[in-house]
């Protein structure tokens, strides 16, 4: 193992994040802010997304700030400009529960150019090499106070074009070490060395336009396993035309390999039948009460190229839906958050790869 890879291996909870990881986050993960606030284009959306895999609990937190897209909204000019801030909080012990909270502008502080966001008493901030998260459900039944230490280099992808819309952008930190606690009712889950994931998305795009995605992130159950994986596939709304696809692999702190587009074959098997689905915001369940989805029972991928290969299988488990009203019509966009298991094997640069662990895959579209 060469010195660079040895230094880059930061899977131990006790290891401090490298200066490179810190630099990557401070210079890549900063909040872009909506240009409409200063007379630029509208329809901006931006969110910070976190997923923590505890021993007996999964937690999803999504802090979002999106432009007001109503035709009758105040013109996008300075003080008349409106944004909407929301916290999506989902937690799973045996099954997903959660909510979406909306915040008035007076209760929101967004640190443009930094990773710093406050929605009411819910906060996310990156400082001293750590993300500090605090979140609480409106009724206090769910509470999370977590510190996340990134141990993998962020990967940033800009200007991903889909259809005829403006491009989207994202940054991914595939592996963090979580400490803190998550309380669900009277039960408190202590996190000590739990693995976690973070991404940040931004761009001018409209819910209801002709795009869909499958986005998955998986981490091994064995924290000493250095491999981390992110799967991305963008398609049209009908899932008939793939616009881009990729499997991103990190070994320790370093992004080791990306299988792109034609290197990958992706398939789905079956349809996951749900007896129940946690729908948030709850009121959207009245508009979209369906339990039928196009979430597959399994999503499989195979990649090969340059002497490397990978085979992976995600098996769908419990599901939650984040349901969003479309920007320009009376339809809805459904983001299916599916907890499941991930099995991956392969060989990368002559080294065996294996991941057996948990994953959350998002299926957005219908």
């Amino acid at each position: 193992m060469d010195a660079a890879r040895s230094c880059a291996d930061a899977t131990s909870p006790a290891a401090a994040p490298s200066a490179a990881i810190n630099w990557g986050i401070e210079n890549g993960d900063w909040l872009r802010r909506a240009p409409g606030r200063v007379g630029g284009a509208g329809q901006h959306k931006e969110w910070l997304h976190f997923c923590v895999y505890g021993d007996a609990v999964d937690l999803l937190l999504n802090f979002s700030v999106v432009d007001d897209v109503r035709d009758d909204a105040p013109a996008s000019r300075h003080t008349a400009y409106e944004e909407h801030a929301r916290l999506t909080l989902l937690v799973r012990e045996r099954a997903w529960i959660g909510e979406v909270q909306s915040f008035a502008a007076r209760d929101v502080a967004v640190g443009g150019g930094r990773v710093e966001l406050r929605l009411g008493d819910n906060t996310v901030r990156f400082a001293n090499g750590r993300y500090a998260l605090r979140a609480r459900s409106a009724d206090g039944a769910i509470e999370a106070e977590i510190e996340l230490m990134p141990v993998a280099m962020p990967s940033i992808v800009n200007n991903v074009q889909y259809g005829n819309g403006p491009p989207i952008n994202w940054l991914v930190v595939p592996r963090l070490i979580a400490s803190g606690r998550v309380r669900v009712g009277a039960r408190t889950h202590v996190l000590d060395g739990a693995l976690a994931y973070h991404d940040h998305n931004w761009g001018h795009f409209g819910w209801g336009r002709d795009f869909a995605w499958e986005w998955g992130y998986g981490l091994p159950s064995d924290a000493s396993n250095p491999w981390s994986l992110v799967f991305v596939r963008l398609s049209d709304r009908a899932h008939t035309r793939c616009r881009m696809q990729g499997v991103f692999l990190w070994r320790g702190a370093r992004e080791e390999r990306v299988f792109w587009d034609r290197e990958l074959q992706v398939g789905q098997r079956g349809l996951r039948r749900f007896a129940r689905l946690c729908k948030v915001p709850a009121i959207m369940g009245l508009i979209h009460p369906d339990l039928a989805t196009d979430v597959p029972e399994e999503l499989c991928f195979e990649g090969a190229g340059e002497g490397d290969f990978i085979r992976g299988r995600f098996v769908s488990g419990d599901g939650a839906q984040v349901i969003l009203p479309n920007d320009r019509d009376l339809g809805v966009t459904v983001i299916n958050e599916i907890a499941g298991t991930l099995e991956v094997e392969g060989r990368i640069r002559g080294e065996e790869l294996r991941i057996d662990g948990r994953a959350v895959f998002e299926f957005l579209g219908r």
Partner: protein
Amino acid sequence: MAGPSSSSSAAERSFRAFLVRSLDAITHETPAIARALAASLAGTLVRLCVDDERMVVASRLDGLAIVDDLEGALVELATDSATLLDLTSGATSFLDAALAERLVVRGGVDDVVRFYDSLILYLQGAVRSPSLPRLLGEFERSRRACAPENGVQG
């Protein structure tokens, strides 16, 4: 004086007051949906019975109006605040509430279908209106003493 302020306070906390405020918000914040909603109920009177309150929704040239109960309603919906809160919190669905007879809708088939479409339009306006989370929260708090506890959706 306790009496008048109590009754005016009760009126402010009524379902009718919430409905009027929500329609006002939809009218100002999603006017296109408000117009579609009014058009969907054109020529139809809908009676709403929630707890002890009875009122009629009527479509007029300038939009929907909530008026005192009168004859001629083609559709009647009867329910209670607890069921409404369970619906908005995800604790139950329209179908489950109807099967449990917690929500009863009466009318001709075509009129009931039309009313359901209008109800969904109302919800479409509500979820796009920035004021509705606050208004719904105020209504929930006004009913908390009477309604079962509803917290995070599960």
